[in-house]
């Protein structure tokens, strides 16, 4: 073979990879994460001119502040776990919808509506005994979230209406509804309801074993386990998988696709609504348009990256919360505003998303001139 032709071979080629070992994918994602961290550190360095190691140390302190822990203060870790639990809740809610290939971008709105009705119950039913009130709040938030999931599902099932934009628009309607409701609840014209029932703590999730946020963890863990079982071992879960794989196959199998879409979105919306209840009752005790705070979007990525395995979701949620807390710590330590956490989350997400490529494809670099044409499938490279 003449050197001339070899030199014209493309420098980089891409070929499909058949199957990917678990070890390899873990390695790939780990490297991707590392790359994301490196790049975000470089960005912070460029902005602040700080030593990257200091930045990382500060980041770690966002979750694990060893000095405080030495004094017996576990606050930051609890906050991180609390936020992880909330993110996981929403992710668990989204899992069935996404497994069905229903792009529910509306977790934000479903959660807001859940939070809104919870807050409404707290304000208007504060005379009820607390356990009853909590139950009513939970039920109401489930219903509100389910309604917000139901509407796009019905139109998707009936007319094939684009659910991505429908659910998205439902978010904004929910935001306006919350703003409207805040003005209704609050008679002081301050556009804020403040902390609800600050003195009576009515409708507040009680602490458990002296921990404020243990309930949050229990709820999230229970939901994660139930959802795992639901998706994997029940007929409903089976139907969701079939519909998600191919609607035609589902019809062929005699599955009522419309029913499955609506039912699944009711569940998805309900769980996201419940997450709103958790936020209002067990964390913030207030309601505003930033109650959901973009978690509905982050949770989509959590669910997607975990391939709908709720246990992996817990890990990814923890990771994202860790990053978020770290970025907030950096911003407060170095006097930056905390939008930096969103930026860093974005960077890391890009890296993790890009990583998927290396589990499904392999890159083949141009062979050296001498060794050309020897054996197939050489030059494997991550």
């Amino acid at each position, binding site marked *: 073979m003449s050197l001339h032709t070899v030199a014209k071979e493309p420098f980089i080629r*891409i*070929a*499909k990879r058949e199957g990917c070992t678990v070890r390899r994918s873990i390695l790939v994602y780990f490297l991707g994460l590392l790359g994301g961290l490196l790049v975000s550190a470089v960005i912070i360095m460029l*902005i602040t001119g700080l030593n990257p190691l200091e930045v990382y140390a500060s980041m770690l302190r966002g979750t694990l502040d060893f000095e405080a822990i030495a004094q017996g203060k576990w606050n930051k870790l609890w906050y991180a776990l609390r936020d992880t639990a909330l993110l996981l809740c929403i992710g668990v809610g989204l899992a069935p919808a996404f497994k069905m290939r229903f*792009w529910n*971008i509306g977790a934000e709105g479903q959660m807001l509506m859940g939070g809104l009705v919870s807050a409404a119950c707290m304000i208007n039913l504060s005379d009820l005994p607390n356990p009853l009130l909590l139950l009513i709040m939970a039920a109401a938030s489930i219903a509100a979230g389910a309604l917000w999931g139901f509407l796009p599902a019905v*139109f998707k099932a009936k*007319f*094939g*209406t*684009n659910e*991505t*934009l*429908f659910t*998205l*628009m*439902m978010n*904004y*309607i929910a935001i*306006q*509804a919350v*703003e*409207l409701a805040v*003005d*209704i609840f609050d*008679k002081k*014209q301050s556009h804020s309801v403040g902390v609800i029932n600050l003195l009576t703590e009515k409708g507040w999730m009680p602490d458990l074993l002296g921990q404020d946020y243990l309930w949050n963890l229990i709820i999230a863990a229970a939901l994660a386990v139930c959802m795992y079982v639901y998706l994997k071992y029940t007929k409903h879960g089976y139907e969701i998988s079939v519909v998600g794989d191919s609607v035609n196959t589902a019809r062929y199998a005699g599955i009522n696709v419309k029913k499955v879409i609506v039912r699944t979105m009711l569940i998805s919306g309900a769980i996201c609504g419940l997450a709103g209840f958790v936020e209002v009752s067990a964390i913030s005790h207030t309601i505003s348009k930033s109650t959901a705070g*973009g978690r509905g*979007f*982050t949770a*989509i*990525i959590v669910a*997607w990256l975990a391939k709908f395995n709720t246990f992996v979701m817990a890990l990814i949620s923890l990771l994202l919360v860790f990053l978020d807390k770290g970025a907030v710590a950096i911003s407060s330590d170095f006097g*930056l*505003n905390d*939008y*930096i*956490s*969103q*930026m*860093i*989350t*974005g*960077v890391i*997400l*890009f890296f993790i*998303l*890009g990583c*998927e*490529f290396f589990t*499904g*494809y392999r890159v083949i670099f141009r062979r050296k001139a001498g060794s050309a044409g020897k054996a197939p499938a050489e030059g494997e490279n991550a």
Partner: protein
Amino acid sequence: MLMTIANLVALITNSVLFGTVIMLGCCGEILTEKSGNLNLGVPGVMYLGGIASLAGCYAYESGCAAKGTTPAGYLCVIIALVCGFAAAALGGLLYSFITVTLRANQNVTGLALTIFGAGTANFFGGLIMQKSGGVGTINLSATAQAFRAQIPFLPKNWGVVSEVLFSYGAMVYAAVILAVAMSLFLSKTRAGLNLRAVGESPATADAAGIRVGRCKYLSTCVGAGICGLGGVFYIMYYIKGMWANDGYIEALGWLAVALVIFTGWRPVNAIWGSYLFGVCYWVYTCMPEAVSRFLASTLGLTQITYTQNLYKMLPYIATILVLIIGSIRQKKENQAPQSLGLSYFREER
């Protein structure tokens, strides 16, 4: 508040300005989607465009202020447009790299881009605000003025007609021209034909010798750049050279994405579609007071103006209605490009 001519004129001009933002976003997204890339990062790239133009003009204007010279209007405009376009196109480049080269899921990547763009813009917006002395202190008056400068030779003395048709800055007209030009590009030129082929069937385009990857990259980057101009217009024209981290650009970005479906992937339809969305948004200024009073008392609101939050649902509800109606009567000609949202790999078997 009575429905007066002045009210109506204000409604129309406001709607046109509002519409221009999403028209630019929509046109950019149509160009992107025609190549088969569904970029849900429109809000993100609009943010990037907005913040980059703000940063560029802030540097220029404060530099002039330090030197004691007056900033030149045309330079302000050029800096804003170039910075905005470039930053947004870079966002598009990032998106293309991840979805076209690395073949990641387009929806998720788009959402990540939105998160990233919003974070980056608000972060730097915060930095600039801090630098300029606190919240609400950024005021790029020279740039805003230059953007808002009316076109000299258009008649100004035709009363209402002038106000409704000729009272805008050049960019409003430029957006309309862009929409028309893009329609012509897509339907009449060979490059447009090739681009559409890529979006319809990348395998066909590839077999015909069109470089699919390059085409996707190019249209996504230019499309994102145009979306970014929407961000520039919002910052420099709509809110007059200020910065606010109220998440408003994000909402506009999503409306732009929704508008794409509304237009049936035809940029000319974006012209009236976007103005219509604008009317939906601003129509509350023309709501009869009796209605507002009735609503306020029914809902238990302390102020009549608080009913605004109810009216502001309108554009979103309208969008939903548009989506539903569009899905009920589907036509073959107005459909999304066939391979929209799918990544292409030549050696796929």
